Each structure stands twice: as C-alpha cells, then as structure tokens.
C-alpha cells in the first residue's frame, strides 16, 4: 500500500522542526498529489501549501513556486493570510531577480508578519538564505561598493551594516570613502583525478590525434 497521508505528514513535521527543508520538498509534493488525486481532503491542503511554498523559496526554485501558486485554488488564498504573505514574498523575489530590486521590502514583510510555530523555522531559514545568496553575489561582482548598496541588501541599518559585514565576512571597510571591499568567495578545490580517469583522458586524446592524422 502506498504510504498513507497521515504518515507522510508526521514525517514532514519532524523534518520541519529540525529545519531540514530539503527533505520537505519531495514529501510535500507527494502529499499534494496524493491528497488532491487519491485521498481527497484527508489532510487540509492549506497545511501543505504553505510549507511547500516556503521550501521552494528557500531552495530558490522560483519556477516551481510560481506553478504552485497558480495551482492553488482561489478559496485557499483568501482564507489563509500566511499563504497570502508568502505569495507576496514570491512576487517580490521575482522582481528582485529581474531588476535587482530592493530587498528591504522582502525583509520587512518577512519580519513584520506573524507566522505560526510550524512555519517560523522555515521563515528564518528563508531570510538567511536570501541574505547569503545576495552577499555572495555582491562579493563576486564587486571589487568595491558603496555602503548604501550593501546595506540595502541585508536586514540591518546602514551604520551597523558595515561593521557587521567586516566582522562576519571579512570584508574591508573604508570609512572615508564609504566603500566596502568584499573578499572574493573561496574557490572550492577540485577533487583529485584518479588513475583510471586519467587513462580515459589519455585514450580520448590519442583517439582524436589518430582521427586528425587520418583526415
């Protein structure tokens, strides 16, 4: 027998509390399928949509999030304020992607809304992930940037932003010019090449040389 919905819900709850959102996504997807197709309304769909949407946002899978939103019937959206907030967050994130918009709005929204206990850990994760992603991008793209730009990306006031970044990420701060000098992110070391793979590479090169001589 396929795993009954209740069991999956319990599994999901456990992962949620531990903050392991990666596991949540396949669980909730299967739940959504089962409940809408097979065991109609065994579990209220609301409780599935919200964590699933939040998980998609954390994983930065905006396409799936958007499709999910399209799938949600109208009545659910009206009923659940949390869901509405999340949808608004999604739209802001999409705008942010497209036009490098203002992250402050997202942060405000995330902080000022009330989240029930089940969603709260996910929301915290969401904010951290957004912040980290943006700061990594800034480090990659900029050799020097004005403090205001950096501050707009993180959830901190402008004056404290500089110290925070210097402390946590090792950036350099020039107070006179008001510039931050990000440190380029570490390059992950390559895994070592094995002897067999090296042999494969040699075979390929030899084969290509033969072909070249022949042609």
């Amino acid at each position, binding site marked *: 027998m396929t795993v009954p919905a209740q069991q999956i819900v319990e599994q999901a709850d456990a992962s949620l509390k531990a903050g392991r959102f990666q596991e949540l996504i396949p669980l909730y997807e299967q739940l959504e399928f089962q409940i809408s197709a097979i065991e109609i309304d065994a579990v209220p769909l609301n409780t599935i949509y919200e964590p699933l949407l939040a998980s998609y946002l954390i994983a930065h899978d905006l396409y*799936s999030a958007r499709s999910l939103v399209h799938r949600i019937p109208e009545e659910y959206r009206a009923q659940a304020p949390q869901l509405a907030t999340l949808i608004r967050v999604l739209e802001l994130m999409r705008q942010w992607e497209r036009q490098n918009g203002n992250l402050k709005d997202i942060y405000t929204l995330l902080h000022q809304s009330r989240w029930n206990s089940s969603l709260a850990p996910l929301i915290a994760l969401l904010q951290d992930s957004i912040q980290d992603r943006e700061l990594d991008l800034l480090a990659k793209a900029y050799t020097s940037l004005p403090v205001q730009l950096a501050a707009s990306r993180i959830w901190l006031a402008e004056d404290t932003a500089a110290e925070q970044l210097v402390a946590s990420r090792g950036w350099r701060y020039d107070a006179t010019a008001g510039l931050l000098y990000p440190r380029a992110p570490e390059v992950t070391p390559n895994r070592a090449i094995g002897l067999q793979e090296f042999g494969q590479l040699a075979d390929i090169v030899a084969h290509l040389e033969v072909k070249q001589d022949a042609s």
Partner: protein
Amino acid sequence: MAPTDPSIDEIISKIQACADATSVAKTLTPFLNNLSDQVFAARSHGQTDPIDALSPQLHSLAYLYFLVHRCKASHGFHPALMEKIWEFVNTCDGEQIRPASNKAFVFAEALVKMATESQQTCLLAQSFKDAIPILNNDISDVNPTHTHINYKDFLLYHYYGGMIYAYLKNFERAVEFFKLAVSAPAEVASAIQIEAYKKYVLTGLLQYGKVPILPKYTATVVQRCLKLQCGPYTDFATAYEKKSNNVIKAELEKIKPVLVRDKNYGLAKQCMEALHRRNIQDLTRTYLTLSIKDITSLIGLSSEADGESRVEGIIVRMIESGAIFARISHEHAGGMVSFLDDPNQHNSMSTMDIISTQIQRATAITASLVAMDQSISSMPAYLNKGLHMPDRAGFPMDEADYGMNMGYDAYADEVMIASFSSRVLGMLAVFATIACVSAFNPMSVDNSTKLTWCENQIGFCTNVCQELTKGAQCLDNRCDIMNLQYSCQCQGGIIPNTTEYTYTIPYFMCVADVQQCIHECPLSDNGCYSNCNMRNCAAEFPKKYNQTIATSLAATPTATNGPQFTGLPPGIFGNAANINRGPQSWAAFGGSSVLGLVVFLTVGVMFGNHHMD
C-alpha cells in the same frame, strides 16, 4: 462476452491459482492473450469489479491486463483509476511482468496517450518539474502502428514540450522542440505548426538574437502557410535584428494586439530584456573597462529614468548567471565595469565529467543511428529507389570507401572478425577444388572491398538461382574473400553465366581493373582514358568455371565472349516485384549507393549463418 469465453469468475479463480512465475508464464499468458477485450470489461458474478479481487503484487500480470483495458477505455481523470495505477506501479512484481513485455509496452503507451493529455494537464497544472525528465529523452523513434500515437500527438508533444522549456527559460531546448514541430513532414500545414513557428521565432530571437533558418526538409506547403500567417512575427524579427531600441519598441507596440491574442506577449517582452543583455555582451568584445554611464548610453538606455542603476542591475544579474565575467568597482563615481576573460581553464574534474557524459551520449546516438541505417536500407521502398540510380564505373568501389569513411570501421572489423574469419579459413581448403582462374590480382584490393564483392556475388547467385529454377535455393553458393574465388550453382546443375550480369565477382574485378588503368594514365591524357574505358566489363574478362564441375552435370555454361554487357536481364531487374522478394534481394547491394557496407554486413551475417556453417 463471447459465448466461448469463460466467465469472469472462472478467470479470476484461474488467475489466483497460478501463483508462481513459471506457471504464470506458461499457462496464464496465452490464456489471457486469447481472451477478448470484452472479458476485461465485464463484471463478476457479485457485481464487483474483478480487478479488486486481484492483488497487484501477487497477480501482477493479470492486473496489468485489466489496467491496460481500463486505461484505454477511460477518457479522463478518475481518482480511483489513478490510485490503482499508482499502487500497481509501486508494487508490481517485475518477474511476472517480464514475459508480457509487449503488454507492458501497451500499458506504457496507453499512459503516454494519457500523457499528451497529461502534458496539457501538466501545463495547466503547471507542475513542470515532473515533465522535464520525460522531455529530456529525445524521441528518435515513433512506431505508430505499435503505439497508436498519431501525427497530431507528435506535434502536440513537441509544442507543449517547447512551451515547458520556454517557461523554465531553457530556450535552447525550446527552439529545438519548436523546430521539430514545424519541420515535421507534412502534406498540409497544421495549426499546431503555425503556433509552434510563432513561438519558434520569439524563442529564437531570445536565444540567438536572430531567427534560425528552418531546416531544408521542412515541407514547402508549411513554409508557404507560415509566410502568410506569421507576417507580424517576421516583421518583428527583422526589426529586432537591426538592434535599434526605438525601432524595435515601435514594432513591438505595433504587433502587440497580435501577440496578446496569441498569448505570446510575455515572450516578446523577454525579448526586449534579452536585447539589452546581448548588447552588453557585444561590448565585452570591444572594451576592457567602461563606466556604467557609458554602457547605459551605448546600449540606448540613457533616455530612461534610472537607466544607470537598471544597467548596473542587469550587469550584476548577468555576472550571476555567468553570461559575462566582470567586476564592478565604485572607486570612481558612478561605477566602472572591468570585463574579464573566462576564468575557467577547463582543467578541473568538472570538465572531465562533462567530457565523459558527452562521449557517452555521442556513442549512444551513433549506435542508434547505425541501427536506423540498417533498418532503412533493408526497406523495400528504399531498395526500389536505389535501383534506379545509374550504373557508373567505379560504383561498387565507392560504396565500400564510403562505408569505411562513415566511421563504421570498428563495426566492420568486428563483424568481419567475428563471423567470417574462421569460416573463410575453413573454406580455403574447399575452394582449392574450384579452379576459378582469375587474371586479376586479388591482393591489390583491400579486405573490406572484397567483402563487398563477395556479398554481392552471393546475393546475386541466390537471386539468379531463384529466378532460373523457379524459387529453388542454390545448391552451391560460395565466395572466398581472400582470393576472390567463387562458385554458384543452382538446383538441377544450372550454373548462371556470371559474366552476363553485374555485381558479380567478374564484374567487380573488371571494374577495378578499369580503375587501375585510369589511375595509371598520365594526367589529362584523354586517349589513355578512353582506352581504359573501352574495355567493356564482363566481355573482356571471361571468367570461366572449371569445366570439369560443369560438365559433370547436365547443364552447360554458355559461352561468354560475345554478349555485350547490356545490363540486367529483365527477369531480375526489370520487374520491381522481384526486388521485393525478401530482404535477401540482391538489389540491395546494387541499389544502395551509400549504405552498401552496412547493408551487406547485415545480409552477410545472415548469409554467413545460412551458407557458411
């Protein structure tokens, strides 16, 4: 239910009785195959659905049969049916299913039939992630009779697939899919193709900055239709390629109603943004550093309010996606962008992984291509067409060379070694008794060519004998690759006159000789050339059989000095019907100009098994 069919209850009990795999395979499968469709639709005695009496795990095979029928009958989405399918797929017993693989196949494409509908559902339900693994497997083979998929399904599949890829911003694949839909062979243009073309134009502009040219094999009727129907789109494309912002914007406004009607406006808007990105990319070719202000004016956005920050945003996003490599510095007011080279030196394990996956894919595609070649070249329609190609001197040599150059080297080597070497060596002793005298030096020709010739000879002999003796098999039909000795003898001791026909060993040797002669001629010495060509193949090389073998039998071979090489006796070749006489028609060898090696490899293996054992 037909009167001879057993009742449902009996069927159920019989199914339940066969519990283990062997009995299932032996008794149940033929039994179920013989039942008519109606049986599966019927209900059992107690009006319960018979499918409930079976457990998917224990009685997987029978369950499968029932499910197939239900799937075919249902036209929509039934939760109960979905549940059963889900359960079945999760818990079925593989061992039982294996013998009924064709039935499982039917099940799969009953699901696929629901799948084009489900693709639509997918699009509507917008759960694209799940469709992607299916879409990533290219379709290379559609068997309509087997799978009941029709032309419209093919078009729809690629149309929806392209839309899904476009939604996920994988525009390269989207263009591929739309191109496949548009260039599918057609006698009448389909509305699906027209819609696909509109999206093809837009995604092409997005990905490549211009509309890629449709392949040459697109049906002309489709092309004409497209010109008529998709005028606005082609206008937009021409304006886009000029890269002037204002012109493009004006054009976009002009065709906006058309776009909105076709629901392509979103794609067109993305085209505009892609234009900016493409312009910035062009700048990287010319400049090392630019200020953001200059970039804004260069790409034509200086007239917009907030243009500079927008440009900065675009650049940052491009850096993130890897479209350009650059770093922005704000040490100077307004920001400077320095463009860098690609820091990837391709010396890492990730490159190695990419190489291995690509090689595997290439090998897989080559293998399936070879298989496709073989199947096509043994089709009667192809042989028919190939036969009417003109005979040219040097023709058989070319096909062998071409075969080698197609990269079948490894393939040819393998087959030759595997199926012929041992047999050929064994035959040498036997062939010592056959005194086919040859003035031609067999060692001057390479093995694969001789292989070609031998297969031609053998095939010729089969066909001629069948013709001369009204369908009887040959008594003796052999050919030695090493020294090009051959023997061909039909039932009743009839020995065909090989010099009267083409594609026999004498003919090939003569042709090769002519070629050699031409090769030795000094350049542009027309006299020498015509001298060589004067030799009429088959007339100049009388290859006589050992008369002792011939005279010991009733028939005598005819003299061969006289007859001109007039080509082919009507009995064999003039009549198209004879050519279709099975895959062993030796017209295969004569006709196929480009796939000769592959063709007779196939047939050769068959012959090898038949004659040389």
